[in-house]
């Protein structure tokens, strides 16, 4: 029989505004970072979420008082290469590869940076279960498997353990595989055999051309599908028209992850059932914190502390109307980190 209680517990845990948990000892960030320079290469500056983290990091760095530079790019590996070399040539102390760049996919540049005494960080890039990338000095993953558990639990609760789930992922994003396996495993475990699931892999570059047709095909071929999990929430915009056009709107629910504002808007409007969000200000601070600790020679945390919060019809408004990246998660982290860094 489905374990609805366990499922409900997971859901409840992530339905509350997160609390601040210090990732380590307090330290004097201002003093130790005074002569240090940090460089950040995001996977793409045209992704608002990513660019938002960068901007937030820039503000935090200014608050603490050290030099921070981001390398604006459009997701071209050759641009990342240029950024890395720029950092190496201009005396930076640390390079942050942010939001999905695989350090060993820039192996030569990472090696050159390390050889020049520069620390290379991979942040917000993979799951906590993914082995650390040897090309990076430190890897700071986030808990995608936990995201998978939350989604699995949510669906179990909502369907009382009788779900037929279509999962759509992109295997070209490193976090995908552990994350979607976690969704599948959670469904298997909590539903106790009452849930079935199919997985479709659509590479990021083909979202616009393939998600809609594949969802349509799957819905028509298997009319019992009642949940769709686009594992990154920006996919939902291609799932929704498939629901509209096959007349499944309202019957088939969408549960997803990322907290992208327009999707939270869709949650508020009832088009998407739930979206798990991660606060961008929280990510920026925990990233800077981990990197400062490494640059200052302190103990570094294993992973980033990125609290996950479920947005559904009831709390979607807390993210703002229209929704923002950083609203609805409370502001404990702001003062929490300030205290931790000795700024107040």
């Amino acid at each position: 029989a489905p374990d609805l209680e366990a499922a409900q517990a997971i859901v409840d845990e992530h339905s509350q505004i997160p609390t601040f948990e210090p990732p380590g000892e307090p330290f004097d960030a201002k003093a130790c970072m005074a002569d240090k320079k940090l460089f950040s290469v995001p996977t793409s500056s045209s992704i608002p979420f990513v660019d938002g983290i960068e901007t937030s990091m820039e503000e935090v760095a200014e608050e603490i008082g050290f030099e921070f530079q981001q390398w604006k790019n459009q997701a071209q590996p050759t641009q990342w290469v240029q950024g890395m070399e720029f950092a190496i040539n201009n005396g930076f102390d640390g390079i942050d590869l942010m939001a999905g760049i695989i350090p060993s996919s820039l192996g030569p540049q990472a090696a050159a940076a390390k050889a020049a005494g520069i620390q290379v960080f991979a942040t917000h890039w993979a799951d906590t279960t993914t082995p650390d990338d040897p090309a990076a000095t430190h890897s700071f993953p986030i808990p995608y498997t936990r995201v998978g558990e939350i989604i699995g639990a949510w669906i179990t609760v909502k369907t009382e353990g009788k779900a037929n789930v279509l999962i759509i992922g992109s295997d070209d994003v490193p976090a995908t595989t552990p994350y979607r396996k976690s969704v599948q495993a959670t469904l298997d475990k909590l539903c106790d055999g009452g849930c079935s699931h199919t997985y479709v892999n659509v590479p990021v570059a083909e979202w616009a051309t393939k998600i809609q047709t594949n969802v349509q095909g799957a819905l028509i071929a298997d009319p019992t599908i009642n949940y769709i999990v686009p594992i990154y929430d920006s996919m939902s915009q291609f799932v929704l028209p498939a629901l509209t056009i096959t007349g499944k709107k309202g019957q088939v629910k969408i549960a997803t992850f990322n907290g992208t504002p327009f999707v939270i808007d869709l949650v508020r409007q009832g088009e998407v059932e739930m979206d798990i969000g991660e606060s961008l200000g929280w990510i920026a601070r925990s990233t800077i914190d981990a990197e400062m600790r490494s640059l200052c020679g302190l103990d570094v945390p294993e992973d980033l502390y990125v609290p996950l919060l479920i947005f559904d019809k009831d709390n979607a408004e807390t993210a703002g109307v229209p929704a923002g990246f950083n609203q609805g998660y409370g502001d404990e982290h702001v003062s929490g980190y300030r205290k931790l860094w000795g700024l107040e």
Partner: protein
Amino acid sequence: MSEATATPGAAPINWKRHAEAYALVFALVVLFCVFGALKPVAFLSWANISTMLGSQSVLVFLTLALIIPLTAGDFDLSIAATLTLGAMMVAVLNAQMGVPLPVAMVCAIGAGAVIGMVNAWFVLYFRIHSLIVTLGTGTFINGIVLWISGSSTISGIDPVLVTYVVVTRVFGIPLVFYYALTLAIVLWYVFGYTSLGRRLLFVGRGREVARLSGIRVDRVRFFCFIASGMISATTGILYVGTIGAADPNSGNTFLLPAFAAAFLGATAINPGRFNAFGSLIAVYFLVIGITGLSMLGIQTYVQNLFYGGALVTAVALSQLVRKREAQDFS
């Protein structure tokens, strides 16, 4: 004179010509039957057929926008960016700034016209190859889209648009299909049965001949660019209506499929010429394959293999029917 020449209507049916014109239609039917046999219940359902017809109407629209300048001998690589801009303008104006939908739509189509004019100006005044101009303007427009959208997806568009695009149905097929069909009929008529259409064709095939036959070649090309810009922007509006949101990137992925459909379509119905119904058939030929494969639950990379393979194979077969006579679009 002999009776035979006097009554041309009595000429025997030209089978070769028909085989050539309908080879792609035949391939489409065969493909349909194959998937129908493999997945009889799901694939042959009216729900599936109407879904296929409705969901790719946007691509049909964009392909139709493209064949206008192609017929007049110009490439337009900016169509996909224009689509995206049209979509984004409607979203920004309507959802973010509260401008009423009709006004937002007029603005978007106007922007498409402006893009057409800019393309035409560079091509016709500076005499630059259309490929390079539209490659450049397309990239530039992408920049504008990223700018006005703040790189993010914008939803919250007046639901009336969605209602009139995909929600309302006739015979179970969303309205957008009928819009695409209407545009195809209009282009078929204009290309085939008006002197305007003839002029386009002559401009595309022989600029100097056209000029000396009293056609204002530059004016015709100018209006072709404007038409493709306006139809592309309209396609953007329909895209928003299909998806209910506008994002700054996904429209660009339609560029190569539109070219594929335009060139594949030029092997059907009126072989050797870009034509409206050929384009329509080409889009649905490719869609049937993709849909069938996804229903069978086959890995998505197989869809790429099908898409590329079917495109080339279909054209190769139609070339065999034509005895491999060289394709000449200019």
